């Protein structure tokens, strides 16, 4: 998913034009981060749980081919059809073929970031299949003809007044009514009719258990279950990394997932699908789409441990103040910035630079992914591969020359101080990114080098 050629900085600039809105976005996400902190503090042994989650996922990555085969065999023994898709295109074709061969023209879908990554909705629409996203946040962004800006909170960038207006236009609610209770009830009634009339339901997968062949889907709204239990065909799309070895490991992941995501003790529904409902069929589509390649990148393979809780986004100072859409990728924020360059390094070369490397993402990650280290490593890979932006390359080249020679360093320092003193407009202008939203400091009379030279002569030498 890439809808514009603008990079993160340019899109963040657009987002930043509305300062009160940026503050609101920032504060809302920080509030979610605080809820996470409260939930985490309430249970004993949180750090041990993170360590267990991390180790289980390490074990998964080291044995993934075997676990995938075990999962496939057990799922098939449970009466579930298993399909394999090497990329997004094949995934979309498999889903379309399943729908067409069953004469299905309308489906309901619950949240699946994988189908966002594959652009499934657009593909199905082009092929005459109507898709309704049933997660309220996704339903709202679908009405607005947008993509989710957050993996857990898809319409976190929207104000309730805008949502009220969308409902007024599309669902005929009274103009100006922006009451969340009223709007939710409207969507509930509208989508209930939809659930009752759709023959196929598509869901994502949170965890797939190799030992038993079952898969688990977590929602708060109950939309995945409403879709799957009322449809004749349930299609579940999963990335290859969703595998966990044993059912008992769900105990670890279900304890950390919702607490990390929203601060809830657990999602309202954690549904375990093992066999199809009598009279209905279940299909699982297992998707690679670049994941096996990421598995081979030693520095970046840990990104595949991600359980999509969104905690790294809620805590990220850059995400909170630039918004999910500025990342221009199905998965935004810190984790999206280490997943995206694997898919297309050139296209997503800007994302690893959209970080302060403060490390807060790494600290909150429930499976201990070294997110900020990977962002730093991606920057090096991107620059060495020649994908860094021209301006950044030129600036870095100039810095290298200045800093590698003491003479040019001293001269440059003098010139800089002189210029800031005599011609401040040369640096205090809109072309200097360091001048944006801040005043430059008062210029010192001399450099530290000059000050030291002058002052050390006044002091005894042997202290």
């Amino acid at each position: 998913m890439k809808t514009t050629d603008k990079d993160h900085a340019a899109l963040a600039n657009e987002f930043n034009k509305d300062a009160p809105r940026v503050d609101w976005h920032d504060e809302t996400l920080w509030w979610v981060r605080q809820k996470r902190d409260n939930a985490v503090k309430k249970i004993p042994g949180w750090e041990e749980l993170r360590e267990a989650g991390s180790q289980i996922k390490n074990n998964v990555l080291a044995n993934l081919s075997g676990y995938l085969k075990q999962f496939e065999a057990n799922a098939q023994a449970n009466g579930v059809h298993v399909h394999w898709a090497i990329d997004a295109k094949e995934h979309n074709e498999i889903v379309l073929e399943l729908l067409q061969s069953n004469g299905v023209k309308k489906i309901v879908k619950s949240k699946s970031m994988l189908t966002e990554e594959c652009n499934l909705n657009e593909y199905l629409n082009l092929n005459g299949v109507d898709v309704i996203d049933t997660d309220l946040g996704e339903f709202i962004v679908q009405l607005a003809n947008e993509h989710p800006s957050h993996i857990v909170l898809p319409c976190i960038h929207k104000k309730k007044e805008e949502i009220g207006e969308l409902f007024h236009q599309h669902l005929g609610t009274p103009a100006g009514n922006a009451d969340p209770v009223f709007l939710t009830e409207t969507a509930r009634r509208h989508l209930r009719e939809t659930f009752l009339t759709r023959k196929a339901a598509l869901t994502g997968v949170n965890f797939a258990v190799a030992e038993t062949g079952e898969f688990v889907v977590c929602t708060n709204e109950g939309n995945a279950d409403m879709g799957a239990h009322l449809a004749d065909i349930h299609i579940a799309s999963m990335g290859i990394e969703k595998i966990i070895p044993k059912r008992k490991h769900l105990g670890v992941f279900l304890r950390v997932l919702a607490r990390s995501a929203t601060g809830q003790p657990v999602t309202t529904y954690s549904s375990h699908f093992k066999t199809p409902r009598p009279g209905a069929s279940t299909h699982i589509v297992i998707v690679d789409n670049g994941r096996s390649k990421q598995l081979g990148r030693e520095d970046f393979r840990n990104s595949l441990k991600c359980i999509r809780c969104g905690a790294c986004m809620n805590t990220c100072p850059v995400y909170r103040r630039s918004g999910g859409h500025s990342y221009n990728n199905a998965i935004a924020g810190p984790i999206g910035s280490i997943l995206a360059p694997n898919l297309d390094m050139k296209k997503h070369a800007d994302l690893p630079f959209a970080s302060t490397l403060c490390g807060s993402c790494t600290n909150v990650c429930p499976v201990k992914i070294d997110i900020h280290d990977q962002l730093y490593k991606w920057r090096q890979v991107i620059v060495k591969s020649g994908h860094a932006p021209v301006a950044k390359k030129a600036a870095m080249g100039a810095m290298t020359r200045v800093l590698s020679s003491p003479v040019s360093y001293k001269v440059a320092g003098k010139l800089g101080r002189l210029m800031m003193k005599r011609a401040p407009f040369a640096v205090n202008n809109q072309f200097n990114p360091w001048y944006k939203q801040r005043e430059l400091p008062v210029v010192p009379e001399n450099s530290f080098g000059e000050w030291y030279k002058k002052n050390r002569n006044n002091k005894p030498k042997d202290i």
Partner: protein
Amino acid sequence: MSSRNKILTAVAENQPRTAPFPEFEFLDAECIYLSETFINVLTGIGGTVIPVETMIEIQNYILQNFNQGPRTVTNIPALNNVAELMHQSSTSPHALSDVDYAVIDTRLAVAENGAVWVTEKGLSDRALPFICQHLAVVLNAGDIVSNMHAAYEVINADDYGYGTFIAGPSKTADIEQSLVLGAHGPKSMTVFLMM
């Protein structure tokens, strides 16, 4: 080569050498206030807990309080005088779309997160606990375990085609993080806690 084999070959080639199978122990044997914790947590996430001692108390509660709509169904034979008794897979799930109250039972609940474990064995249909407007669950206090690790110890002794943890009424906070109960599933969840 099929996509399956291409993927499995690429994964086998690229996966790291070894990582030990993790062993851990999180069974929280210390927790002695299971019922109190369960009640506090479930109430905190929007559920209601009614402590009871007999089925007659549950019947009376249903008669007095479940009056927001005409159709109340149950899978518990002892409640058949106050609710319509459902039979295993007797109807299509669509026939449940007008259910106002569903009263079901559970044999497992988790104190730390307020969730009850429900499998299709006890349900007439998988859709029942989602499509009803209000959900009620009968739980024996002795069936509450401390945390999810303990829960999976119990679950692993059984088999199911479908099972789900349900923790409170369905909810959403997608509109400006305002919590609203009753997204697509039940608007309320009542647990009759048999002491």
